[in-house]
């Protein structure tokens, strides 16, 4: 079982606090992300973006959330047998979880390397497969956690704070 964490050093305490004792979410949403369906993938990200915009989240934070979320949704469609995106919105942050039905990532550290991609011909035809999605997710998130293993499902979750706590 492989596990990967990347937390912005200055936010380590807030992130640990969140994961050890998550408060009740203000809003919880779930979206199916089917396999190889690049039109449905992205609906969740788009809805969450519209909702956060209405809630008054600033445009730069909105952009970071939208990009990280969309890349994660596309990865479910492109590389997994499909899965579920869950979105938990709190006063000060958003927690996004992507849980798929496998086939898993054998070496997460390798998958994080910019340019590394196992995308097939179909995925590349759609313009994906540069091997930049996971690095983009990391760059835009305050905390990133990935858990996976060959032959099992992949869990990717991330936190983005609305403003520095």
């Amino acid at each position: 079982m492989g596990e990967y964490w990347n937390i912005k050093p200055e936010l380590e305490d807030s992130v640990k606090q969140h994961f050890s004792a998550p408060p009740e979410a203000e809003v919880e949403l779930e979206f199916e992300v089917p396999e190889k369906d690049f039109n449905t993938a992205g609906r969740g990200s788009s809805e969450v973006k519209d909702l956060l915009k209405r809630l008054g989240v600033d445009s730069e934070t909105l952009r970071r959330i939208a990009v990280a979320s969309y890349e994660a949704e596309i990865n479910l469609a492109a590389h997994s047998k499909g899965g579920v995106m869950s979105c938990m919105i709190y006063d000060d942050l958003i927690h996004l979880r992507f849980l798929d039905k496998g086939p898993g990532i054998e070496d997460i550290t390798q998958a994080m390397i910019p340019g590394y991609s196992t995308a097939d011909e179909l995925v590349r035809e759609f313009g994906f497969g540069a091997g930049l999605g996971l690095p983009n997710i990391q760059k835009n998130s305050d905390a990133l956690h990935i858990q996976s293993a060959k032959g099992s499902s992949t869990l990717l979750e991330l936190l983005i704070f609305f403003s520095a706590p």
Partner: protein
Amino acid sequence: MTKLQTLIPLIQATNHTPGLDPGKVEFSGAYVSDLLSDVMGSASSGQVWVTIMRHLNVVAVASMTGITAIIFAKGVVPDADVIEKATEEGILLLSSPMETFNVSGIIYQTLND
């Protein structure tokens, strides 16, 4: 900031989103790439995006990234569903018959005039 309207005659562009007014759209720069994750990682909001990719996903990428207009080079014309989605999202779609290199060169010149 440069008005999109200024660019249209220079690249002989057609506007596929008549519901959106290029006279009201300004841009601060451009990004040129056909790899969607590269665009999401490196383009900035307020830029225009030059590409030959024409699948529906380009609208989502532009919307997530804060791109105001997509310029299809080499005479690429978007399908009706792409135009509909872009209009909904407020993203202008232009097509130029010129190749990517020439479109980019003209944008560069316009921005630096």
